[in-house]
């Protein structure tokens, strides 16, 4: 019976994978400058508009909650909590997005090497999956318990987000993005294209 179930599972899995294989879009040119530009733009927006410490502190600041609880009626309090929850969730999703971005970035460049280290790749894949799962759990925790119920988790997310930024930054430096499109990397020229 186990053998039959296993065979059926393999058969179905193959057909499902084939479906996604056929649906899969065209792969972009390998190591394209476009990829690097997009990675750089994402990183810039994260670093300059989302991740500064004071912003993170502001989103999760307990003083705000205390002030609203002291000074505002209950309707305003619930509105405040609801909006802070939305903001914190959006913020965690950005962290998850950054980890996904790093994963895509690593895969996109690792494929260029003829001699991949399979054990390293497996370890990395495992770590990516683990981190993405942890981020998802944090998202659920914030959704269920709110931004002020788990301050430890919030700190964690903040630190993690900063780290992800560092990773992306290092990767971009490593891949010599500056040499590919120096104008795009100039912070004063955000969004400008040549």
């Amino acid at each position, binding site marked *: 019976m186990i053998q039959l179930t296993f065979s059926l599972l393999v058969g179905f899995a193959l*057909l499902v994978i084939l479906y996604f294989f056929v649906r899969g879009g065209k792969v972009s040119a390998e190591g394209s400058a476009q990829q690097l530009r997009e990675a750089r733009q994402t990183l810039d927006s994260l670093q300059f508009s989302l991740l500064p410490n004071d912003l993170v502190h502001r989103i999760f600041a307990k003083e705000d909650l205390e002030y609203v609880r002291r000074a505002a009626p209950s309707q305003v309090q619930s509105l405040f909590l609801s909006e802070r929850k939305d903001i914190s969730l959006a913020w965690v999703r950005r962290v998850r997005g950054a980890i996904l971005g790093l994963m895509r970035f690593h895969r996109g460049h690792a494929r260029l090497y*003829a001699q991949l280290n399979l054990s390293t790749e497996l370890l990395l894949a495992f770590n990516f999956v683990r981190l993405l799962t942890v981020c998802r759990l944090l998202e659920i925790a914030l959704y269920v318990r709110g931004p002020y119920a788990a301050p430890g988790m919030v700190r964690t997310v903040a630190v993690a987000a900063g780290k992800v930024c560092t990773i992306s930054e290092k990767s971009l430096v490593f891949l010599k993005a500056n040499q590919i499109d120096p104008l795009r990397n100039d912070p004063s020229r955000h969004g400008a294209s040549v």
Partner: protein
Amino acid sequence: MTIFTQIVWLGGLFLEGVILIRSIQGKSFAKYSLFYVYIASVLVTSAALWVIYIYIAKPSVNVAVYWPAQYITLALGCGVIFEISRHVFAHRVSLDRLARWTMLATFGLIFLLVAVHAFLLPKWNVAANTADLERDLRVAQAIVLMTIIFLTGYYRIEIGKNVRGMILGFGVYVGASVLSLTVRVFIGPRFSTAWQIIQSSAYFAALAIWAVALWSFEPERPSKPPSDCDDESSAGYQALADQTQEILVSIGDHLDKPRTK
């Protein structure tokens, strides 16, 4: 045999002939030699089975010839997977090696199980368990094919029209075979007619896909690695992997700490 199966059978012979003729006209036979050898072998065995079926018309002879012929084409089908892996991972030595190891391990495991059965169970013999063995070998092919598709998706490796068609056609056939053989083993002879229809229809669909995808030879797009990514610069890859790993571990530590408090 139903009229439907006969039509599909003859249609299949026609498509196999078309594929082979186009491979010679388009000079792609040498490029995908293992694949075309497989098609040629299926054409020969199918035509021979057809002649036996029409002129000898003895089911016992048909069955006696069918399974050995099926095993030969099954073995050559592994050549198709080998061909796919060779083209998909042409510039990725490690991935090609992984696909081959997966192939070796899965097929090795199945033959080991057959040997164990043959030695430990005196009443068990291959001839009496042909459907079981074919299903197991098809499962092995499916696993290797899934590994190749997963790796191409994971590393976003570009695949040309010809090889894409090979994967799709072979995948459809192997997937349908695994499912129908499994159900046949489970239900028994009552499912034989349905099994014949599914098996021949799936193979016909595969042939149609191959005929379209391999109508003309399309060279794989050269995915030449940049100068700093060649075989000699494994240090470059190691640096990339180490860097990613190092900071992933660091993130992991930060994510884990508060949860353990």
